[in-house]
């Protein structure tokens, strides 16, 4: 285990936050656009430097050294209820570097990609970006569930704000709300789980919980339920079946936002949380089994949907869902290390894929892959970078995706999860197929005649893509050269390579050589094809459930409110009116009637006095 300095970690955390505060509070700066972008980018570069220094200066320590620094929070009788602080172990530091690096590159890319936006919107965009990076870093460095939950929700908020960046577009506004609510559904489980865990153990902090878990002294009734609820948070955040439906819609945001959400912030949070809390999950094999099965199933399901999608960004979105399934399956198989490895490598090449797709969309002015073609000849650099990322995603040696995917597959096989293993192998075939389908349709094939000559992509966008491509290659080469071998049988890499190769060949046959008509292929696979095209009716099921349950319930509540609650109130007020109207008549206004009253009263008093 490696331990970093908490001061540097706080610096990493502080820089994006200060940038956010400056942009949020100083209105003229925010509305000036480019200077705001510069502030945010500089802060992010500083944070990247601090994160790199953090990793550099980290010292190896024994396994039983507490990596967290805590300050008490929420004072209560008998000690503070919760604490805040930073947890600086190897995983957190690596994640910090990934988050700051991807955020920085995406911000640089955005400054060109969104150059046509009005300055005020651009300032707002960068303010959100800074907050997003701060939230994710805070989540990564959390030493306890409560702090993690706070940043978890902030991350959700930022993704909502950025997906809905073009809020005047109804579809973007709807997608933002959908992303927010679907992830909230999982967060309900998360918050219930951590509160139950706190009620049972009296602490939110990871360190005492992990120590107790590893020593076998953690006695909690219903730990399986608690961990399942906590896992639900990850289901929403990391887009696992059946809550994955928000992620493809999140493509309504600007493309760099998609890159950020898919690569470094938002969706990786769930995988990271499960990997972080793994000592607790390890105590409940039933939940782990569930995580692995759901992960593998998500991977396969999303891959089939990616195969029929025409929108390039949605293909990438489904591929993210699919890869998140891989990571979760590794978590479930008891290999959080493999999950985290896949998370980092995937973060790099998925950012590259999205940023490359941004250039492609800029070039063709469409998202539809069937209306693109022949870009490779015009933009060999972009094509090359995209191809590198595609090969990495497909899991081809010697790119990083190959090693991390192999680690995941090896872990799943080790845990004797044969069905999920087969699902993941099938997914790796589909992954290669759908990614190369996009590559062949976009970069090769014949260029459509309608396209006139476009200016080259801005230098910043190009440079970022190249940097990421070099980084992907470097990561892969490092893994290849250090002889990094995942545990698992010797045939495993060959099997996964063979399937990936088969996927590439199939994509080439269908979409490049045109030896088989795609329509005939989909006709041959008609039931699956139709289901995948309709997204397995999951959106319809959710919409139906929403309509049936929520609207039905609200109708009932509305009826009760209208007729029972309002009825009682109306009856009361009508009764008061009638009573007043009746009593009013007692006041005749004639003096003699009042004298009668007085006389009668005196008489009654006399009688009462006599009787008493």
């Amino acid at each position, binding site marked *: 285990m490696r331990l970093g300095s908490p001061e540097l970690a706080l610096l990493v955390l502080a820089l994006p936050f200060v940038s956010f505060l400056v942009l949020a509070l100083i209105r003229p700066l925010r509305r000036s656009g480019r200077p705001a972008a510069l502030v945010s980018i500089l802060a992010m570069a500083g944070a990247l430097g601090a994160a790199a220094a953090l990793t550099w200066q980290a010292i190896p320590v024994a396994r039983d050294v507490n990596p967290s620094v805590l300050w008490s929070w929420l004072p209560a009788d008998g000690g503070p209820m919760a604490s805040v602080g930073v947890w600086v172990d190897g995983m957190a530091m690596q994640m910090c570097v990934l988050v700051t690096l991807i955020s920085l590159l995406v911000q640089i890319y955005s400054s060109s990609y969104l150059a046509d936006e009005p300055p005020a919107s651009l300032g707002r965009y960068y303010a959100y970006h800074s907050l997003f990076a701060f939230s994710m870093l805070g989540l990564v460095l959390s030493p306890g569930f409560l702090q993690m939950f706070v940043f978890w929700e902030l991350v959700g908020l930022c993704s909502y704000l950025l997906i809905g960046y073009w809020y005047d577009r109804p579809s973007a506004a709807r997608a933002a709300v959908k992303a927010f609510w679907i992830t909230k559904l999982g967060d309900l489980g998360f918050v219930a789980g951590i509160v139950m865990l706190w009620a049972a153990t009296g602490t939110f902090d990871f360190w005492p919980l992990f120590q107790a878990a590893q020593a076998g002294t953690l006695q909690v009734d219903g730990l399986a339920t608690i961990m399942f609820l906590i896992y639900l948070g990850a289901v929403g955040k990391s887009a696992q079946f059946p809550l994955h439906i928000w992620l493809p819609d999140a493509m309504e945001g600007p493309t760099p936002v998609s890159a950020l959400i898919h690569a470094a912030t938002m969706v990786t949070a769930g995988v990271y949380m499960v990997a972080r809390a793994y000592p607790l999950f390890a105590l409940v094999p039933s939940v782990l089994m569930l995580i692995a099965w759901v992960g593998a199933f998500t991977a396969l399901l999303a891959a089939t949907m990616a195969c029929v999608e025409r929108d390039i960004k949605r293909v990438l979105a489904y591929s993210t869902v699919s890869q998140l399934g891989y990571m979760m399956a590794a978590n479930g198989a008891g290999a959080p290390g493999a999950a985290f490895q896949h998370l980092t490598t995937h973060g790099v090449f998925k950012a590259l894929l999205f940023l490359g797709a941004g250039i492609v969309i800029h070039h063709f002015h469409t998202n539809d892959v069937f209306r693109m073609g022949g870009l490779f000849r015009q933009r060999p650099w972009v094509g090359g970078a995209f191809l590198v990322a595609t090969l990495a995603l497909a899991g081809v040696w010697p790119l990083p995706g190959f090693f991390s995917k192999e680690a995941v597959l090896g872990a799943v096989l080790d845990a004797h999860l044969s069905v999920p293993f087969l699902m993941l192998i099938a997914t790796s075939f589909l992954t290669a197929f759908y990614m190369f389908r996009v590559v062949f349709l976009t970069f090769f094939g014949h260029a459509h005649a309608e396209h006139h000559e476009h200016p080259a992509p801005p230098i910043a966008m190009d440079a970022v893509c190249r940097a990421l491509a070099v980084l992907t290659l470097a990561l892969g080469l490092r893994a290849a050269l250090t002889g990094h071998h995942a545990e698992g049988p010797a045939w495993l890499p060959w099997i996964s390579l063979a399937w990936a190769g088969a996927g590439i060949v199939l994509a080439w046959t269908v979409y490049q050589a045109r030896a088989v008509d795609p329509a005939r292929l989909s006709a041959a696979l008609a039931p699956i094809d139709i289901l995948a095209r309709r997204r397995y009716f999951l959106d319809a099921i959710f919409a139906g459930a929403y309509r049936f349950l929520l609207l039905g319930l609200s109708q009932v509540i509305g009826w009760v409110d209208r007729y029972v609650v309002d009825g009682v109130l109306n009856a009361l007020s009508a009764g008061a009116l009638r009573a007043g109207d009746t009593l009013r008549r007692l*006041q*005749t*206004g*004639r003096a*003699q009637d009042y004298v009668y009253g007085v006389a009668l009263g005196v008489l009654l008093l006399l009688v009462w006095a006599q009787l008493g």
Partner: protein
Amino acid sequence: MPLAAYLVLAALVFVIGLFGVLTRRNAVGILLGIELMLNAVNINLVAFARFRADLAGLVFTLFTIAITVAEVAVGLAIVIVIFRVRRTIEADHLDLLRG
């Protein structure tokens, strides 16, 4: 004559006055009833003063008579003003305060 005779007389006068106040429709009649009730009280006071040999009752009576005079003066003035304004002194018609 014993004290009781005076008290019975006073009670009779008071009840006659109350009856007049309750039944008369004419405002002047009501005022007359009130006069009777006040004088019934005066009879009581004078009778008690005489039988207890206490002058306080006579002093009270003198005050009551003076106040009664004032009350009649004001009451009749009000009745006259009401008559000028409403052209009636029927008590049943004077119901401006009806709810």
